[in-house]
């Protein structure tokens, strides 16, 4: 997506609206979580190159604004299904970089204790149900959680993420259709990062998937996915609609996957100039700059924040490396549950929840 004058104006207006809801500390947080995601993924990539990560490595470089901006609106009692380009959402909800890195290395201290790898995790204590590799599946699970909120009359939201690749699968249709029929309190965050593995948009769909939302009976909005406040504002509005019983929203975030599908993918199918164009729109650099130009942050303050986060991730990595491998006998444990344990609540750093209390519609 090219930035036209008109969309720059629209972005500006969205930021003005978002401004009502974000404090100075919230803005520092948004940058903090985006940097934390990038630093964690860079650290994980190094571990992969050092041979410490079995299997392959997958990241969401260039997409940090989406998972951070969207998850930032959530209340503790909301629930999530977070996908593999969305580490930022896990970090916002309270997963530490150390547990993420340990999971990549198959260590006992990873979120799944070695049972599943890479980004295939969800911390149930933080209200998150981990993804499966059949990517659109989680849209149905999120719809089901939203169904339970609706049946119990609770003002809660289920949020899930997927790429534009998922929208080609029939399961995605089943999820959107079901959510539309029952006006479920679900927020569907679609990350159009231009490629499903190597397949470009033009071979994925004839009509942009955001257009389909209204045919399911709910709004679809397109935002600049490299603008964290634009994503935040769209998600805030969607979550507010959901809590108010007005049903689901599909948010399409236009972005670009700046790395390969996995570390094994050299992206030979991507035109070089495309990278250059999107590099100039890097969500972290852009937001760091905006904090200074628009929101009165000192450049040193922003630099320090970025340095502090990187140091924290480095400490987390050291702890993750100390985590032992799981004991082989655990391979046959845990197939069946002995009892049902409810999901726990996630962290909700947005100042709104402290100012107004949990459950209050923003």
């Amino acid at each position, binding site marked *: 997506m090219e930035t036209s004058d008109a969309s720059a104006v629209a972005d500006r207006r969205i930021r003005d609206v978002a401004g009502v809801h974000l404090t100075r500390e919230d803005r520092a947080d948004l940058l903090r979580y985006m940097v934390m995601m990038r630093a964690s993924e860079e650290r994980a990539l190094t571990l992969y190159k050092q041979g410490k990560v079995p299997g392959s490595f997958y990241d969401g470089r260039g997409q940090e604004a989406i998972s951070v901006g969207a998850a930032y609106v959530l209340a503790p009692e909301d*629930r999530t299904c977070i996908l593999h380009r969305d580490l930022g959402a896990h970090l916002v909800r309270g997963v530490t970089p150390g547990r993420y890195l340990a999971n990549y290395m198959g260590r006992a201290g990873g*979120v*799944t204790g070695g*049972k*599943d790898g890479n980004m*295939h*995790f*969800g*911390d*149930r204590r933080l209200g998150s*149900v*981990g993804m*499966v*590799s*059949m990517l659109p*599946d*989680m*849209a*149905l*699970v*999120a*719809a*089901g*959680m*939203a*169904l*339970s*909120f609706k*049946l119990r009359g609770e003002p809660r939201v*289920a949020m899930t993420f997927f790429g534009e690749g998922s929208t080609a699968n*029939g*399961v995605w249709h*089943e*999820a959107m*259709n*079901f959510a539309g*029929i029952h006006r479920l309190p679900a927020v569907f965050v679609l990350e159009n990062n231009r490629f499903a593995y190597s397949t470009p948009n033009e071979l994925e769909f004839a009509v942009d998937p955001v257009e389909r939302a209204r045919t399911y009976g709910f709004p679809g909005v397109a935002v600049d996915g490299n603008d964290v406040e634009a994503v935040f504002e769209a998600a805030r509005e969607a979550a507010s609609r959901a809590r108010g019983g007005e049903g689901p929203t599909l948010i399409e975030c236009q972005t670009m996957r700046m790395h390969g599908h996995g570390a094994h993918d050299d992206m030979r199918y991507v035109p070089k100039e495309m990278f250059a164009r999107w590099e100039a729109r890097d969500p972290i650099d852009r937001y760091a700059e905006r904090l200074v130009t628009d929101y009165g942050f000192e450049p040193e303050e922003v630099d320090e924040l970025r340095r502090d986060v990187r140091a924290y991730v480095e400490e987390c990595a050291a702890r993750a490396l100390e985590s032992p491998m799981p004991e082989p006998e655990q391979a046959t444990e*845990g*197939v*069946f*549950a*002995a*009892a*049902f*344990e*409810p*999901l726990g609540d996630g962290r909700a750093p947005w100042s709104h929840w402290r100012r107004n209390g949990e459950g209050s519609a923003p």
Partner: protein
Amino acid sequence: MNAITATRTPAQAGEMTYLAAISDALREEMRRDPTVFCLGEDIGAFGGAFKVTDGFVQEFGAERCIDAPLAEGAIIGTAIGAAVAGLKPVCEMQFADFISCGFDQLVNVAAKLHYRQGIAVPIVVRLPSGGGFSGGPFHSQNPEAWFLQAPGLKVVAPATASDAKGLLISAIRDPNPVCYLEHKGLYRHVKGDVPSGEHLVPIGEARIAREGEELTVIAYGSSVRLALLAAEELDEQIEVVDLRTLCPLDREAVLASVRKTGKALVAHEATRSCGVGAELAALIADEAFEDLDAPVRRLTAPDVPIPFSPPLEHAVLPQLEDMKEAIRELLAY
């Protein structure tokens, strides 16, 4: 038939069909526990293709007996979400065959969530299975072996009205995904005394449906009835083990019976290769080899789809005469 219905009569009991017992179990649990709800195609105003949920909308409201769109993935997938968020969904596949459309959600999401993340998924998937009524290749299948290859799923297959109720209540209260195979041929042809009110049959426990000394028939679902009828008509010392649960399997009950009789025939309506019969034959060979007086035999459908035309279907599904023949042959070994 008498062998099935002549069970102990509890203080408070009533005779009902297998179908009514399923309905009764669901109704009891929905009255007892407000988190239990049903989700399936045409189960609301219409009461379900087989009328299991007849009258449920009137008693519980449309929100607890949800008519789903024609989308089995959505039925299973949203049930998983609702379950992890604290509800207890009971999904109805209109026919067991249609689980293929929701299979991904069942085997990849539901079955693996606890192993991968420690998240329990208390859903029940009701699966009207089995042939014998010219339903053809897509309304007659016995898909239990599919589920047995997906660790994390429990699989039950009641043969009696009493077990139909007791196993369904246990399935609803179990914290794991449970595939509940209800054989359509038993719906209105099997009747029995069913305890009223709360009645639980533990998942994972087989029962001895008939005692005998000479030969063990190990069966479940519709084959239990065939085995009991055959045993009665042959008037021999036949023991019939009704598995009731296919996963987790009651290995001890099977082995104890085979060690006593020394001869085992495993019977099921599902196809032959890599089925429950193959698993049991391997189990018995591994654990009770020394006690065997004959090879373990299987009576199953051959490895073909269930055909439509009556003579073809009759040729494929195990019949009473086939059961008697298989027993006679093994007794004579």
